């Protein structure tokens, strides 16, 4: 089909010669397997940080905002810095899934699921800050315009802070349904592979009974496209409105018209950096290097470099406009930012955000995983300092020199920030163990155009598919194949002696691929040996596993690790 064509110059997005089934196996592997030690270590650290944050929040709420380092001059500091930082990080998810969908960038498919998860988790962190800052978080619903017992007491629709409430809650909820709708087919895949009844129940519940009818897919694609079209202006509006929190004020250093585009570029910049941080770890931990390739990392680095340069332009424009405006308050605000007591924060912001991404001009550097990881962390730090610089340096030297002061955070400020980082990673780590972290249905749909094996076939001028034999259904022909490896014959008969033989004329073979760890190749090998039924596999013990390993010679120890016999027993019962 012509629709599978892709220019030969494009590098494959899925490497390792995968077919459709391999994609399912690889993506469900982290969910079906057990968590390793590293996961538990990282999870414990994150959980501890989260609990510390909970403690700091409880202390704040029960004692008051006075536990923070705020004073009458610097009356907004880490709280709003953290809020803007987390919201900014959230932007990359929607950008990747919505904007890159509109631009038909296929490379987004390997990363959009995790990027959207990151969006949702980081917007949750961001939302915590205004709610805690309210002092009485149980009255948070007062920001919603609901009729109340106080007479005509309404929220102020002229206030950018209220616009924020609407923008962020719309953003969070729309991102959530976008994410979940995309997850339905993938949850369904996990559901249909699930062996344990509990897993089956849970994934049936969350997949909403997705069946994959042609009409469902038609609607699914249309819904995805329309949601992408809606989410694109939405994501731009969210950070625009966040920037209004500052830009509509009359504080020198905040009162700038460049803020909306500059904040949006900064948000994409920091968001991509966080995606990069998370995915470089995840591809390794979940063995997804074939899907999240070096090419993906390189492309994200290019986005980081471009948006970093936009941010750099904005910084310089800001300085120029402060000078050119002739407003001495404005001029002082910027002079103080760069040369005042917070010069170190300004320098950190400039070097992390403007200088560091520029090394991505070199191909060697942007394809290096270690350097990409380091730069992504550097950018995250730099973007936190950007918000800190904008917020604190504009406030700490106000109109009365007698009230000039500095800001120093208390352990509660630090505790809440660390707590949100912990909370974020707790959510992300749980996600990585229970959700399909790659949009497998989408990856399958581009496999023929961008998968390495299909690319090779196309280059060799061969068809991308083979017509199955017309004579009879595949199952009956397979049975007649017998292992012709004469040296293994004795072992084979030995193995079949304990497992029981399979009579093709009486019985029909099971789909052994349902056992985790058995792919199409292994199934073929097993079939050649004479193993066709779950019942046969379920009788395997250590001795048979070893025998099998010596016959096949591939993946030694795999069968024990995945407990084929146990799985097969369950599958056999279900049949």
């Amino acid at each position, binding site marked *: *089909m012509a629709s*599978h064509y892709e220019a030969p110059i494009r590098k494959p997005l899925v490497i390792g010669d995968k*077919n*459709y*089934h391999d994609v*399912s196996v690889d993506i469900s592997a982290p969910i079906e397997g057990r968590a390793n030690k590293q996961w538990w270590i990282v999870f414990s650290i994150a959980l501890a940080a989260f609990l510390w944050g909970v403690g700091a929040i409880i202390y704040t709420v029960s004692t008051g905002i006075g536990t923070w380092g705020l004073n009458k001059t610097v009356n907004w500091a880490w709280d709003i810095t953290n809020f803007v930082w987390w919201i900014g990080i959230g932007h990359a998810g929607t950008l990747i899934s919505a904007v890159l969908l509109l631009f038909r960038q296929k490379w987004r498919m390997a990363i959009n699921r995790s990027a959207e998860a990151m969006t949702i988790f980081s917007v949750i962190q961001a939302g915590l800050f205004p709610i805690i800052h309210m002092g009485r978080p149980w009255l948070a619903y007062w920001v919603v*315009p609901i009729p109340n017992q106080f007479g005509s*007491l*309404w*929220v*102020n*629709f*002229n206030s*950018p802070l209220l*616009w924020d409430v*609407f923008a962020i809650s*719309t953003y969070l909820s*729309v991102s959530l349904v*976008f994410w979940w*709708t995309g997850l339905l087919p993938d949850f369904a*895949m996990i559901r*249909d*592979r699930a062996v344990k009844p509990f897993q089956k129940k849970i994934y*049936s519940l969350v997949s*909403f*009974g*997705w*069946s*994959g*009818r*042609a*009409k469902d*897919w*038609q*609607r*699914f694609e*249309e*819904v995805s*496209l*329309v*949601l992408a079209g*809606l989410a694109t202006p*939405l994501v731009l509006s969210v950070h625009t*409105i966040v920037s*209004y929190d500052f830009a509509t004020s009359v504080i020198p250093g905040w009162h700038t018209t460049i803020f909306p585009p500059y904040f949006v570029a900064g948000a994409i910049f920091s968001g991509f950096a966080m995606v990069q941080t998370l995915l470089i770890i995840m591809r390794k931990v979940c063995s997804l290097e074939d899907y999240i390739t070096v090419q993906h990392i390189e492309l994200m680095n290019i986005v980081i470099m471009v948006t970093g340069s936009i941010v750099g332009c904005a910084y310089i424009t800001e300085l120029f406009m402060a000078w050119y405006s002739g407003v001495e308050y404005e001029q002082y605000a910027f002079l103080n930012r760069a040369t005042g007591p917070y010069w170190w924060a300004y320098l950190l912001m400039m070097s992390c955000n403007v200088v560091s991404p520029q090394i991505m001009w070199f191909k060697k550097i942007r394809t290096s995983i270690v350097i990409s990881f380091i730069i992504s962390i550097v950018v995250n730090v730099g973007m936190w300092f950007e918000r800190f610089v904008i917020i604190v340096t504009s406030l700490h030297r106000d109109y009365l020199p007698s009230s000039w002061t500095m800001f120093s955070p208390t352990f509660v400020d630090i505790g809440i920030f660390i707590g949100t980082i912990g909370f974020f990673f707790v959510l992300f780590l749980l996600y990585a163990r229970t959700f399909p972290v790659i949009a*497998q249905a989408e990856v*399958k*749909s581009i496999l*023929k155009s961008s998968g390495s094996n299909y690319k090779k076939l196309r280059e060799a001028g061969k068809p*991308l*598919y*083979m*017509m*199955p034999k*017309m004579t009879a*259904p*595949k*199952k009956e022909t397979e049975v007649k194949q017998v292992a012709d490896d004469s040296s293994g014959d004795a072992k084979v008969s030995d193995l079949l002696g304990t497992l029981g033989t399979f009579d093709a004329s009486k019985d029909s073979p099971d*789909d052994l691929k*349902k056992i985790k760890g058995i792919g199409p190749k292994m199934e073929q090998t097993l079939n050649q040996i004479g193993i066709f039924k779950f019942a046969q596999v379920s009788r395997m013990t250590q001795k048979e596993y070893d025998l099998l390993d010596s016959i096949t010679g591939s993946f030694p120890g795999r069968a024990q690790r995945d407990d084929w016999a146990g799985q097969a027993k369950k599958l056999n019962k279900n049949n």
Partner: protein
Amino acid sequence: MASKVIHAYYNDDDVLMHAVKKVKATKHHIEEVFCPFPVHGLDKAMGLAPTRIAITSFIYGCLGLIVAIVMMNYIMIQDWPQDIGGKPSFSYIENMPAFVPIMFEMTVFFAAHLMVITFYLRSRLWPFKKAENPDVRTTDDHFIMEIEVHGDEKKLREMLLESGAVEINSIEK
């Protein structure tokens, strides 16, 4: 309704597309095709009508815009007009610039959520809904074409086998 259907299994989207065209050409009715991933052009080949879900989204968006205007006009202009920052709230149109962000957000909110709800209801997707794909492999790497049997079943089976089916089952519905 007691009718007999045939489930033809395919393991490749290209083969499936050819098969769908072939079955359509022989005037058989394709009841349904279950796919593990979206196959582009399948809906057209099957003769499915284009979806109208984007139109509903537009209507919902308009509704959201109206709700936002009515709400803010009532709250800010009618019910308790205030003079905020020297900008008295006498008329909606004059104060509108401050209301644009929320008008936009509400439009998106309504368009997105109501469209997704419509999609879930039309495609019968909700928690505790039982999946209806006839074989678990249809979410992995197999495609199932469901065809109603009228008349010569054997001939139909032969034709399906020829079209590249890897497995064929008859099912009494």
